[in-house]
């Protein structure tokens, strides 16, 4: 799926020329330092990855590459959707510190300088994302990024691309408005009565050459007219090979995020394969998706993962054959997971069950020839200090994560607590008090704490607690909050104390 550069791409690249002229500065001052590439596939759940034990073979290429990587088997996102998850990854801090709670939200202005790009000053910093929500954060950090690749550069041509140009300061909501106005494809209805009927055939004509490659439709990323992952991967690979070194590259691709639109090669790959998902009770937050729909959605998601797996494998091979990986640390991870169970599909949910928060983490370091499995519980906030450590840089005081094993010079604190949060109804400058979900992991236990949700209030409750032993019960089927009341109460007390402490400055 290689593409030659067209006029539009050339003009956009021309705008980046002055930054490329700065290349010698990086070469002279930072000679010998390792490059860092962070690849994020959005909504990529560890639960659905065969490398992590899923029974469908969704990741044959990643599994093969993992034989030369450090594989983190219990790695968790900072949140269960893009804003919070990405902010934790990029800032190395917990959600109550960075305070990027709302969809399309930014991190709190007071801590905006606390980000990975800011601390990699000796590196040439590049970033790209398909995802409009993640792009809000990258734009917030743009002063710390040498080359913020325009989002639309790796999207397919569109008659609606004027929206990004015309409403640059409100790109996210302007794009939602445009989509709801003009696009009939997703729902069959739009605000526009006539132009919407004309738009679709025109847009289809623009992308007719690739349409046949995607039987479920061309993948789209938040209210645009689509992208081809392979084209993006090729472009990024070529850019990295030519980029000034040492560099830090953050690339956040949308697949396998919904809509799950795999390529013809993987279409119906898992259809009628006899796969039986584990039976799980309906959640209080169930969206009432029936189990046939959930299985269909899961199958489409798994087939989309196959596409991601293939493209990552191709990217790895391209970078390796270019020789770049000889001096580059490559990180493969995600911002959050995806759920297809308990009456819920996707990740727009209050719940924090394993599939929606446990994500992959693989680190490929130069010279590694064997696989190393790490079973310690780790968090997205650990990536920033680990990468600083690996590139011989100082870790700032504000970083809340720990250096990951096996790189950590000291043994990890056995009492360490990992937090995952969703607080999308809360404001960054106010205490966390409305509709929030927090999970805390300590040793083998994972406590879920849900507070002040309308779904709970309907049942006369304002909070819900459940406790699982994720080592012996990774599917979270047996709630121990009653049978292990003492442990549940102690963990809840710890969690509430922590929350009160974090809320204090905002009271």
């Amino acid at each position, binding site marked *: 799926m290689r593409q030659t550069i067209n006029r539009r791409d050339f003009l956009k690249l021309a705008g980046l020329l002055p930054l490329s002229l700065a290349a010698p500065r990086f070469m002279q001052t930072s000679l010998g330092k390792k490059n860092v590439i962070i690849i994020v596939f959005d909504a990529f759940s560890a639960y659905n990855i065969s490398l992590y034990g899923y029974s469908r073979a969704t990741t044959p290429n990643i599994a093969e590459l993992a034989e030369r990587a450090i594989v983190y088997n219990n790695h968790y996102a900072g949140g269960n959707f893009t804003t919070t998850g990405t902010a934790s990854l990029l800032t190395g801090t917990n959600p109550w510190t960075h305070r990027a709670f*709302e*969809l*399309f939200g930014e991190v709190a202005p007071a801590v905006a300088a606390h980000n990975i790009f800011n601390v990699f000053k000796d590196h040439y910093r590049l970033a790209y994302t398909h995802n409009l929500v993640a792009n809000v954060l990258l734009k917030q950090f743009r002063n710390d990024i040498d080359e913020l690749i325009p989002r639309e550069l790796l999207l397919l041509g569109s008659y609606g691309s004027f929206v990004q140009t015309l*409403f*640059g*300061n*409100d790109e996210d*909501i*302007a794009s*939602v*408005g*445009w989509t*709801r*106005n*003009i696009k*009939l494809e997703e*729902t*069959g*209805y*739009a*605000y*526009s*009565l*006539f*132009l919407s*009927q004309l738009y679709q055939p025109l847009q289809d004509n623009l992308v007719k050459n690739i349409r046949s490659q995607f039987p479920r439709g061309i993948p789209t990323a938040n209210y645009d007219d689509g992208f081809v992952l392979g084209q993006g991967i090729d472009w990024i690979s070529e850019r990295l090979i030519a980029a000034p070194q040492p560099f830090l590259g953050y690339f956040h691709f949308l697949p396998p995020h919904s809509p799950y639109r795999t390529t013809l090669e993987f279409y119906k790959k898992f259809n009628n394969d006899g796969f039986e998902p584990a039976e799980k009770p309906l959640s209080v937050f169930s969206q009432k998706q029936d189990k046939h729909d959930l299985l269909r959605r899961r199958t489409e998601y798994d087939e989309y993962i196959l596409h991601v797996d293939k493209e990552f494998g191709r990217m790895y091979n391209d970078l390796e054959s270019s020789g770049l990986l000889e001096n580059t640390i490559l990180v493969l991870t995600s911002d959050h997971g995806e759920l297809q169970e308990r009456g819920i599909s996707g990740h*727009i949910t209050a719940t924090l069950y394993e599939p929606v928060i446990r994500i992959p983490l693989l680190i490929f370091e130069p010279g590694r020839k064997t696989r190393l499995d790490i079973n310690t519980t780790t968090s997205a906030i650990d990536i920033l200090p680990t990468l600083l450590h690996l590139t011989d840089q100082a870790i700032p005081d504000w970083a809340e994560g720990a250096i990951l094993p096996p790189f950590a010079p000291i043994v990890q604190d056995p009492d360490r607590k990992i937090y995952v949060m969703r607080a*999308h109804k809360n404001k960054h400058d106010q205490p966390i008090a409305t509709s929030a979900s927090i999970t805390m992991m300590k040793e083998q236990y994972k406590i879920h704490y849900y507070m002040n949700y309308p779904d709970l209030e309907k049942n006369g409750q304002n909070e819900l607690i459940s406790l699982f032993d994720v080592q012996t019960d990774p599917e979270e089927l047996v709630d121990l909050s009653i049978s292990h009341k003492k442990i549940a109460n102690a963990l809840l007390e710890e969690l509430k104390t922590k929350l009160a402490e974090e809320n204090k400055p905002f009271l």
Partner: protein
Amino acid sequence: MTLPRSNGNYYHRQGLLSLFLMCAFPLHFWTLLLAFRDISWVIERTNVWDAIGVASYGMIYAFIESLLVFIVASLLGLLISRSWSVERRVALLSVFTLVISLWAMVSQLYFLWEVSLPDSILQALAHNAHPVRTMYMTLLTLTATTFVIPAYFVLQSDKGLKVMRDLVERITLLSMFYIFLSFVGLVIVMIRNV
């Protein structure tokens, strides 16, 4: 009451304004209807200000689309004989705009309400040698019929024209309010983009 005769002009200023407002009415009405429907969806994901933002962009696009539909409708009006009065011309074009807008709404309501055609119709279409052609011909016949009948009354009967003029008067009043909302939408979009 005597209805005006043709003075040889295609349009006058008041007629064009009425026609524009008639074009704007269904487009703004539909946008508002769906925007209100979307509000809770957007609030659930972001916040009230963003939901207002989405509706504001929708109102601006509705205004632009109204202008385009108005241009097309007024050009179509040039095909109508000059011997007809401006009022009759505007009334006829208003009927035309309303009818095609109603059918455009019906085509979307089909998805909005998740209805499907009765099995008997689907079976009949499936067994037809040219199902798509048949479907389009049926829709064209329906649209043409629903236009021709009111158009006949507007053109042939003074009473029909009067009824249409009264309707236009009422709708344009409401339409002006919608145009005001578009203006508010523009202000909101400008604030959001500062």
